[in-house]
C-alpha cells in the first residue's frame, strides 16, 4: 500500500480506501450518477456499522429494486437483492429465523412505500425486528423519473408532465401511525447526524425507520429544473430545520418550504418475536 512514501496525493489503487474492507471494490466505480447522494448515505452506514461495534458477521443487508437496491451488491456484508417491494418480507424471515442477526433493509421510497407499501405498514404493525433505511429521492430514478408515492404536489415527472397532483406520503407520519418504534429523517447532507442516528438505531429492537432525503440530479432535479446534485445539497443546507420530537403531521415535504429533519420518535415496544417466545412457544412445548 505504499501510502506515505509517494510524493503526490493521487492514489491509483482503490483498495487503499479505508472503507474498502466493507465494500466490494471490484464493483467500483458504482453506477450511481454524479451528484447522487446514495454513496454518501452508504458511507454513513458503513461508518455507523463500525461505530456501533456490532460484529460485522451478524449484520445482514436486504435491498429491493431501484438505485438504492444496488447497495446490497456494493456492501461487503451478508446481503441479498430481492424482487421489487419484497425486501421487508425477506428481512422478516431473516429476523424471525435468526434473532442474533441485525437485519437492515436498505431501499428506496418507491420500493418501500409504493410497491412494498403493504409489507412496510404490516411489518411496522407487527413490530418486526428490522432497521429500515429508506432513501427518498422523490421519484423512480432508475427507470427514468416516473412519479412515485413521495413525489411532491406540483412536481414534474416523466409520467406527470403537467405536474403531479397526488398527495405524497409523509414517511415519518406513516411509520409512526403504523407502529414503528424509532423514526428519524435526515438529508444526505447531515452526514454526521445521520451516521450517529444509524449507529443509535442499529442495536435497538423493533421496527426502526430512518428516512434519508437524497438528491436525484439526473431524473428529479432535471425535470424540475432544480440544478445539479450540489445545488440540491445547498438547498438542503438552507431549507432543512432540525427539530427533534417534532409532530410528524407537520413534516410534509413540498416543492418549496422547509424540510423538517430530526428524530421524531424513540420508544420501546415488545417485538413480534418477543410475543411469540413468551406466549406461543410454551403452549406448543418449544423452548
Amino acid at each position: 500500500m505504499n501510502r506515505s512514501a509517494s510524493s503526490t496525493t493521487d492514489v491509483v489503487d482503490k483498495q487503499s480506501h479505508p472503507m474498502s474492507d466493507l465494500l466490494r471494490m471490484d464493483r467500483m466505480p458504482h453506477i450511481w450518477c454524479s451528484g447522487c447522494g446514495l454513496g454518501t448515505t452508504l458511507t454513513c452506514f458503513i461508518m455507523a456499522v463500525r461505530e456501533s461495534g456490532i460484529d460485522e458477521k451478524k449484520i445482514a443487508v436486504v435491498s429491493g429494486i431501484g438505485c438504492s437496491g444496488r447497495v446490497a451488491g456494493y456492501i461487503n456484508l451478508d446481503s441479498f437483492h430481492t424482487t421489487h417491494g419484497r425486501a421487508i418480507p425477506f428481512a422478516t424471515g431473516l429476523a424471525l429465523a435468526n434473532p442474533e442477526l441485525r437485519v437492515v433493509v436498505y431501499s428506496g421510497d418507491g420500493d418501500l412505500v409504493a410497491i412494498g407499501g403493504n409489507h412496510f405498514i404490516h411489518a411496522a404493525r407487527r413490530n418486526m425486528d428490522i432497521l429500515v433505511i429508506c432513501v427518498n429521492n422523490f421519484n423512480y430514478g432508475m427507470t427514468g423519473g416516473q412519479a412515485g408515492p413521495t413525489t411532491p404536489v406540483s412536481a414534474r415527472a416523466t409520467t406527470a408532465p403537467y405536474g403531479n397532483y397526488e398527495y405524497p406520503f409523509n414517511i415519518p407520519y406513516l411509520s409512526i401511525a403504523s407502529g414503528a418504534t424509532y423514526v428519524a429523517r435526515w438529508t444526505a447532507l447531515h452526514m454526521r447526524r445521520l451516521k450517529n442516528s444509524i449507529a443509535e438505531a442499529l442495536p435497538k429492537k423493533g421496527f426502526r425507520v430512518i428516512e434519508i432525503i437524497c438528491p436525484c440530479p439526473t431524473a428529479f432535479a432535471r425535470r424540475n429544473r432544480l440544478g445539479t446534485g450540489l445545488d440540491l445539497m445547498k438547498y438542503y443546507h438552507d431549507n432543512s430545520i432540525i427539530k427533534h420530537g417534532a409532530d410528524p403531521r407537520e413534516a410534509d415535504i413540498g416543492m418549496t418550504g422547509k424540510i423538517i429533519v430530526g428524530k421524531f420518535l424513540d420508544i420501546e415496544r415488545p417485538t413480534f418475536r418477543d410475543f411469540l417466545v413468551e406466549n406461543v412457544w410454551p403452549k406448543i412445548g418449544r423452548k
Partner: protein
Amino acid sequence: MKLWRKPLDADTVKVPRGRIYIIKDQCKGCGFCVQYCPRNVLELSQEFNKKGYHPPVAAREEDCVSCGLCELICPEFAIYAELVEEEKQKDSQETQKAEV
C-alpha cells in the same frame, strides 16, 4: 493593535495536520468535497480522469486538519484523509532542509 490574548495552552495544543489521498479514476466530479471542505483545501482540477470528469486536487493541503468530512461526503469512495504524525512532520521538514 491586537486586543485578544494568546491562549495559555497555545504551546501545547497543536493543530493536527492531514494528508489527502484522491483515487482519481473513481471520482465523478460532483464537487461535494470542494464545496463542503471546512478549511477550503480542495479545488476541482482542469485535468480529466478516465471517465472524463474533473477530479479535485488538494490545492492548499497544508490547511488540512484531517477532519474526515471529505471521506464522509464523497459518494464515490474516492477521497480520504489521514492524520500526519508529528514526528513524520519533523522528519520531512528536516529532510527538506537537508535537501536544500
